[in-house]
């Protein structure tokens, strides 16, 4: 089997496996229904996660934020781009929940729309990073020997480069294209992912059950797909929940520098950026975007911590 095919298989399985959290929900119900039935490790992890109040709260909060962002065009009380110079900056009141900015645009609506961009950056960039990282790491770990050596040295060299700087140059060269931003941010965060996956695969490759599968004549592709990849998913999922906030912060940072999304589109980063310039006169323009971003990042981190404890119960203290 050539390496291309392997790559495709891995990507394919990853796409399937990204659905995993969704199917976990059904699993939890099955357990409650009958004790005789098999309880998979996923179901165990899911029930442990639900016991963690902070993680559950974080998850619920994230779902609410995501749903509101997705539904922004329908639930936003005002347009995000139409200015009302006559109105100008109004402090929060019952009509404009979060107030308006200096151009008279409703801040609540702009935050809703900004959430679309920020969350999309988080999810798509992380997806890019997971795709590259898992494929690269799995190949490196499974191939072993010289291939592994070379591939990991490349990762180390890339680690040493100042990536934020590269993204800035790239954005300047290509122009402020939102999709290039997704790609660029994803492309800088796959290194750690590749290392994590590679480490997992190396230890799994020599595990007894992989050897047992080899001894029963199961093909390599099946071994990677059914036996190795699922066993690496725990750390991958945890890392994903920690990569999303990191990428969102990067986007906020780039937008703050004026390299992110373009006006009149907003992201939480651009809103904070314009809030900073109006900080002294219209403080609500800074406070609300900041609160949104920070609370979302907190929620993601709580969920990430909860997932880590749930997926690796041996690592937690209690």
């Amino acid at each position, binding site marked *: 089997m050539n390496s291309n095919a392997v790559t495709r298989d891995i990507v394919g399985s990853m796409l399937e496996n990204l659905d995993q959290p969704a199917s976990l929900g059904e699993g939890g119900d099955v357990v409650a229904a009958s004790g*005789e*039935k*098999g*309880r*998979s*490790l*996923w179901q165990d992890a899911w029930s442990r996660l639900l016991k963690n109040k902070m993680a559950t709260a974080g998850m619920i909060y994230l779902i609410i934020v995501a749903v509101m962002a997705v539904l922004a065009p329908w639930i936003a009380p005002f347009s995000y781009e139409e200015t009302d110079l006559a109105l100008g900056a109004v402090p929060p009141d019952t009509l404009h929940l979060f107030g308006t900015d200096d151009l008279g645009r409703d801040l609540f609506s702009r935050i809703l729309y900004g959430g679309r961009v920020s969350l999309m950056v988080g999810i798509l960039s992380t997806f890019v990073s997971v795709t590259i990282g898992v494929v690269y790491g799995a190949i490196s770990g499974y191939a072993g*020997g010289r291939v592994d050596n070379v591939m990991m040295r490349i990762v180390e060299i890339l680690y040493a480069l100042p990536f934020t700087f590269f993204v800035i140059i790239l954005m300047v060269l290509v122009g402020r294209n939102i999709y290039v931003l997704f790609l660029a941010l994803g492309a800088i965060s796959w290194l750690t992912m590749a290392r994590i996956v590679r480490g997992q695969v190396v230890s799994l490759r*020599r*595990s*007894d*059950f992989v*050897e*047992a*599968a*080899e*001894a*029963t*004549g*199961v*093909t390599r592709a*099946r071994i990677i797909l*059914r*036996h190795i990849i*699922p*066993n690496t998913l725990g750390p991958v999922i945890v890392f994903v929940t920690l990569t999303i906030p990191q990428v969102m912060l990067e986007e906020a940072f780039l937008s703050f520098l004026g390299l992110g999304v373009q006006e009149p589109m907003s992201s939480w980063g651009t809103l904070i950026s314009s809030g900073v310039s109006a900080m002294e006169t219209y403080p609500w323009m800074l406070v609300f975007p900041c609160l949104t971003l920070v609370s979302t990042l907190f929620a993601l981190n709580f969920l990430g911590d909860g997932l880590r404890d749930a997926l690796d119960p041996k690592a937690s203290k209690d």
Partner: protein
Amino acid sequence: MGALLEVKDLRTHFFTRDGVVKAVDGVSFAIERFETLGIVGESGSGKSVTMQSILGLIPTPPGKVIGGSALWEGRLDLVAAPRREMRRILGSEISMIFQDPMTSLNPFLTVGQQLTEVVTAHRKVTRAEARDIAIERLEEVGIPDPAQRLSQYPHQFSGGMRQRVMIAMALMNRPKLLIADEPTTALDVTVQAQILELLKQLQKSYGMALILITHDLGVVAGVTDNVMVMYAGRPVEHGTVREVFHSTAHPYTDGLLRSAPSLAQSRSGDLFSIPGLPPDTSRLPPGCAFAPRCPHVNEQCRMNVEIPVRKFSATHRSVCYQEHLP
């Protein structure tokens, strides 16, 4: 018809930073249909590596089968066979059971998924058919409620039950040869006896050949027809159980037999053990590898590179200068 499996002069070396470890260095044996062969030796004597070499499961690098052959049914050399061909035979004609049932099952898949995978990897069967075979096998290895158990995960099974699952998995395609690599080492003594009894009984009902790797001579005496004793990557004595146990020819075998505790032994007496440690196979002495630990050693043993093979009967042979031991 020739032997089911005939291994000739198999050599597997591991090329490590500290030198070449000659884990298997000239192993020859044959096993007939329906025969049971026990391979005995201390840890590191090359028992498991011999089997891994035959099945193409040696991690390469650092390991490499550098010589010899393993002729399957007189038609296919397993050592030289292409990967595809090996994959066809593994799990269908030859199956293997591993030492530690606790780690040999994938924790993320149900027992049923893992059992049926073995069938679907080799035969065109529907899911329902594969499932039926799995239920049948679980029943045969003595797992109650097999249909229920299929949907459970490995962690819901005890060690003994898992080893039964591993046996069922090995039997899914009715192999002609079953290799059990220390199948009872990781289990309780009471469970060990059950598993051995099960293996013995299945070997008969399936009419398969069985290679039992162990360091426990008691296991060999109870289960197998023939015994091969290995030391430092080479066979030192080979014969029927009766011959090896009652007219022991090699001092190493003698040492192993005397190391086994017995109830007849006086309580005060210390348990016998062979002095010294198994040698590092990357730095073997020139003559007999057992010479430094052997009570009957003489100058020939240390000097001669080739120790002669003595034949005592059609089946019994020993690699030693020594006549039958007193």
